[in-house]
């Protein structure tokens, strides 16, 4: 390779790359918020007795767990936009698509969290005379969250990794910035190494600092 690893070029593009990382993290956080909210609704519908509610929720979960972001985002951003005239901006399409895909996983996480609370806990709380709200706040939530929070933290890592793709519809995230810098300087190795390194550093930092602390915070107290 000519001139070895041109770290000076990476530094020259550093501000753009960091801005791209900010965009990627922002998209991932917004998408995670969508997943947390939509996932809760889907999980609630999935628990319903009426087949008119649980069958669509079940289908939603199966469908989106099997969908790849690349296919879905192109379909929404180009296909659906042309067919219906509903044109989302790139960031909007990215957040909606990422959020919807991961809301299916989030729904399964809620379900796993609720089913981790033994039946006897509900019965005991009722026998003690706790109201419906207090039952959930004081008895069910602390136990369910011990399962839900660590799993959701893992899911956020997946959301952030998946978000690397949103540049294909024009979001200026790290990967798209690296791609454009590569075209400008024709130094793909430097910029793609920097981009991949930024993801790895962010994700390792998240899982070792944030996720671990969340796990401890919500771990069952004995």
């Amino acid at each position, binding site marked *: *390779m000519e001139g070895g*690893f041109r770290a000076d070029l990476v530094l020259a593009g550093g501000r753009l790359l960091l801005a791209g990382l900010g965009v990627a993290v922002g998209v991932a956080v917004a998408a995670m918020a969508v997943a947390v909210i939509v996932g809760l609704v889907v999980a609630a519908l999935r628990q319903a007795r009426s087949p008119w509610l649980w069958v669509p929720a079940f289908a939603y979960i*199966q*469908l989106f*767990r*099997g*969908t*790849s972001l*690349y*296919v*879905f985002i*192109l*379909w929404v951003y*180009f*296909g*659906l936009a*042309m*067919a*219906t*005239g509903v044109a989302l901006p790139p960031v909007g399409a990215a957040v909606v698509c990422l959020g919807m895909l991961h809301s299916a996983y989030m729904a399964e996480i809620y379900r796993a969290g609720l089913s981790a609370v033994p039946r006897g806990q509900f019965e005991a709380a009722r026998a003690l005379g706790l109201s419906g709200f207090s039952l959930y706040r004081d008895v069910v939530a602390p136990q369910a969250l011990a399962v839900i929070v660590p799993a959701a933290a893992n899911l956020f*890592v997946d959301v*952030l*990794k*998946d*978000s*690397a*793709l949103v540049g*294909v519809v024009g979001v200026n995230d*790290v*990967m798209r910035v*690296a*791609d454009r810098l*590569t075209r400008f300087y024709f*130094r*793909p*190795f*430097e*910029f*793609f*190494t920097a*981009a*991949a390194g930024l*993801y*790895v550093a962010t*994700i*390792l930092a998240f*899982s070792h600092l944030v996720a671990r602390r969340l796990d401890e915070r919500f771990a069952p107290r004995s």
Partner: protein
Amino acid sequence: MPYQFEWYLVARHWQPIVVGALVTYWVAVVSMALASAFGLALALAQRAPVVGRAARVYVQLMRAVPLYAFLLWLYYGLSVAAGLTLGPLVAGCLSLGLITAAYMAEIYRAGLRAVGRGQVDAARALGLSPVAVYRDVVLPQAVRVILPAAASQFVGVLKGAAIVSVVGVPDLMFFANWASLRYFKPFEFYTVAGAILVGSTVLVAGAVALLERRLRAGR
């Protein structure tokens, strides 16, 4: 003017759609084979003293890197830096396989750990050779844990295989991208490509669920 749906264009191009889907499946299967072999090597290496550390670092790193970033790094970056030209298909399978290997290593590790130490001790005490200990005692039990996890990992590989067209693998999405531009009909082509890919993953996921149920029933 409302959008004019032209589904007959899809019907007219059924051949490249079928071939593209086969290419996508092929990428997924080859990547999974690579990941299964390399993942096993990583899982075994993790138990060794010196290479163990390198294997653990590899697993940590690869689980933190996005497939898209690794694919572009491998295809554009490394080929320029190292002067080796990887074809799109090789780069696609390598990147998907090398990342999945890290997840497979964790799956093997969990499978091997699930077999109680007492099993190995008992088998040794019965006079079984080291090979027989693994072949007849450890593996049959570990497989019950490994197989369902590996199968659901394959669903992830199948989803990942959808992106390799970004480096030019002539798969289903590559054709859908091309045809969408050629006819300016993205809805029809992306819908069909999406339906085929999602249908495939849902089918595989259903098969995985069945497999899990059968293995659990046999326990």
